[in-house]
């Protein structure tokens, strides 16, 4: 995912005219619909054209399924791909030698995983966008940082799964990293307490995957009976999905309350993002809404008709992003369910659309060979 090396405005010699991010990158929540919508639509159309020229299966799909093609008049007309296609097809818009990283989703054992091909430029665009979003929360300085995971997750650096990619990407926004779980994903309380003695009065940044934070930090600390307090102003950023927590009936509100109560962490921000669209994540605000940054947005669609739905109507989430050059991932139909709450009107003051995610579509049942059944 994101580069760990220092950021640089790298421009290769024969740089193709790649579709640009048109809005000031330093203001992820600074553009209202009148400025953002035309700019984003422009970039999305340019990206559709870009991938049509470079990825044959994508061009086939657009030609057959989306008459508007790269001339979409609205964001809803921009062609999209169901996100599961990355599990069955090799969708790439750069020659193979230019792929510097292949990301895979962390899917459960036995399931097919998504394969996302990144070139240097796409990877840098991801980093630039994520850095701007992070800077809007953290400011310019790097915070002492706790990674709520085991350092073992990072061992295979050639093929990053979603968790390793997330950790590497976010770890660049902190310093003096403390990986606070052992390889069995249990809290290493001694290591964390020793590390915390260095930062009695400095707020620290915590990052982890939602279920790892819950099981490895929260439940593990309770089980071990350790008392942990993080310095005032400390902040947790977590993402990766609620499925396992919903199974345990833990809501976002309860998650926040427990972490505050147990560890004194006042600011807990969830984010919605996926390995298929790294960088332009949707960060939660103080009011519990996920926010679209300037270079990304969401649409909610009816799961049966796929028609766009308005504010307040739950449906399947489509995510759009201005980043992706090396694979046709700028407009994706996810299998997550969510509700749009408004545009430019969240009480937190951020411009852009804001929404919540309520879960995933249930998977389809495979019934297979039922051919000896007859009609009653």
């Amino acid at each position, binding site marked *: 995912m994101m580069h760990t090396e220092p950021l640089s405005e790298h421009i290769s010699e024969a740089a193709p005219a790649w579709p640009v991010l048109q809005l000031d990158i330093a203001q992820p929540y600074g553009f209202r619909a009148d400025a953002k919508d035309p700019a984003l639509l422009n970039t999305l159309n340019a990206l559709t054209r870009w991938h049509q020229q470079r990825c044959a*299966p*994508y061009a*086939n*799909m657009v*030609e*057959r*399924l*989306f*008459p508007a093609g790269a001339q979409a008049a609205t964001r809803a007309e921009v062609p999209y*791909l*169901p996100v*599961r*296609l990355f599990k*069955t*097809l090799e969708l790439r818009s750069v020659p193979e030698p230019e792929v510097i990283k292949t990301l895979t989703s962390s899917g459960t054992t036995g399931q097919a995983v998504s394969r996302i091909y990144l070139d240097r430029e796409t990877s840098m665009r991801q980093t630039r966008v994520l850095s701007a979003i992070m800077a809007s929360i953290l400011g310019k300085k790097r915070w002492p940082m706790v990674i709520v995971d085991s350092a073992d997750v990072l061992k295979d650096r050639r093929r990053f799964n979603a968790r390793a990619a997330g950790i590497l990407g976010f770890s660049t926004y902190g310093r003096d990293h403390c990986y606070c779980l052992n390889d069995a994903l249990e809290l290493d309380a001694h290591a964390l307490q020793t590390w915390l003695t260095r930062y009695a009065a400095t707020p620290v940044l915590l990052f982890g995957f939602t279920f790892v934070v819950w099981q490895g930090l929260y439940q593990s600390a309770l089980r071990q009976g350790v008392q942990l307090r993080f310095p005032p102003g400390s902040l947790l950023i977590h993402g990766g999905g609620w499925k396992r927590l919903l199974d345990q009936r833990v809501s976002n509100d309860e998650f926040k309350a427990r972490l505050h109560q147990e560890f004194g962490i006042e600011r807990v921000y969830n984010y919605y993002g996926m390995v298929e669209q790294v960088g332009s994540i949707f960060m939660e605000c103080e009011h519990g809404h996920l926010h679209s940054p300037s270079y990304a947005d969401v649409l909610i669609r009816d*799961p*049966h*008709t*796929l028609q766009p739905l308005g504010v307040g109507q739950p449906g*399947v989430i489509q995510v759009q992003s201005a980043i992706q050059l090396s694979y046709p991932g700028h407009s994706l*139909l996810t*299998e997550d369910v969510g509700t749009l709450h408004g545009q430019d009107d969240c009480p937190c003051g951020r411009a852009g659309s804001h929404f919540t995610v309520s879960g995933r*579509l*249930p*998977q*389809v*049942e*495979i*019934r*297979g*060979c*039922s*051919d*000896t*059944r*007859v*009609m*009653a």
Partner: protein
Amino acid sequence: MNSVNYLLGVAEASASLTNVLQALRAAPAWQPFDTRAVEFVKRFSQKLLTAAGIRQHPELAALGHWFRGANLHQLAQKYPTDIGDVLVLGRGLAFHVAPSNVDSVFMYSWLLSLLAGNVNVVRVSQKASAAQTFLIAVLAQTLAEEVGMPVRDRIVLLTYPHDDAITGALSDACQLRVVWGGDATVRTLRAIPLRPTATEICFPDRFSACAIEAEALLALDEPALAQLASRFYNDAFWFAQQACSSPRLVAWVGSHECIDTARTRFWRALEHELERRQPENSEAMSISRVAASFEYAGAGLARPDGAVGLMPGQPLRLTLERPLSEAVKALHCGNGLFLELRLPELVELATQLSDKEQTLAVHGFTRAQLQALALALPARAVDRIAPIGEALSFATVWDGQDLISVFSRKLLLPTY
């Protein structure tokens, strides 16, 4: 070894498989439609149909209905067991491997095997389902009655985790192995040797289609068209178009103009039927049809009609851009997705078919046209041509094989 879990027919949970198989092998084969077997199956079917809770399992009710007494007696007439110099006998011990995701499928072949005179050991899925539990309970009750006495030592139901050693022991003991399942299961089982004198019948993944003569469809009046749509609905929408014999492709035969009008009429009639019958259509099913459309489009295999682009809905229709191929069949997800193609003559469908095809449901062709198609088919393609509406009906000839005949053997005797 011995993680075998006996579900029926073996009282002692810790019995060794070797001993169980030895006892089963010692039981004699009967002749097909032996009264003892017929009486048992008849009683089982009665009990099944009257069991409390059968309404929750319409497919088991269908099973009970199929094995009703009247049907058994009719069947028995078709299979004389003593004809001149031939005496028909069961093969002996039959080992049945049931599919993992369907509960009633294996019951048909297994009960036919019992009727054919065999002793049966059935491996069912590790995942117990409500329907499976229900079936086993009714079987156990029937066995406990007097009518169950003679067959009690001829039926064992068991389950075990995938284990080549156990499958090997069963395969070495049996005279007949019957495998239901996907291609992968069939391949795995094939690698495990059978007793040299044994024989094997497999029911792997299949693909099924439908062919409609456009002019014949245009000749139908509205009520007849509605009836055809209703029969097509039964074939395609029962079991979410996922049975091996559910049609996934519709081949239109005739002139271009006739086909244009016939298609419009037919799909409109089907829409009315869908509105009336309201088949299951979950969000996941809708998304799976849409995702399959993208796969077809991406590979340049099929596309929506005209220039409107993707039209999600139930049914979702795509027109094939290339002849039917393995790739086209592999991408199909069921759930109400129909591929269409056009042909001037039915016989031209033959070259697009392969040994993957099982059932061809048809409307509007003469027997001569169907015969011409059958004679032009590649090896092993299409096991069954049936009128639309009967694609899912079970028959003793399945996947091209007369099950009673292959489950039994013929012993030659002098005629004096």
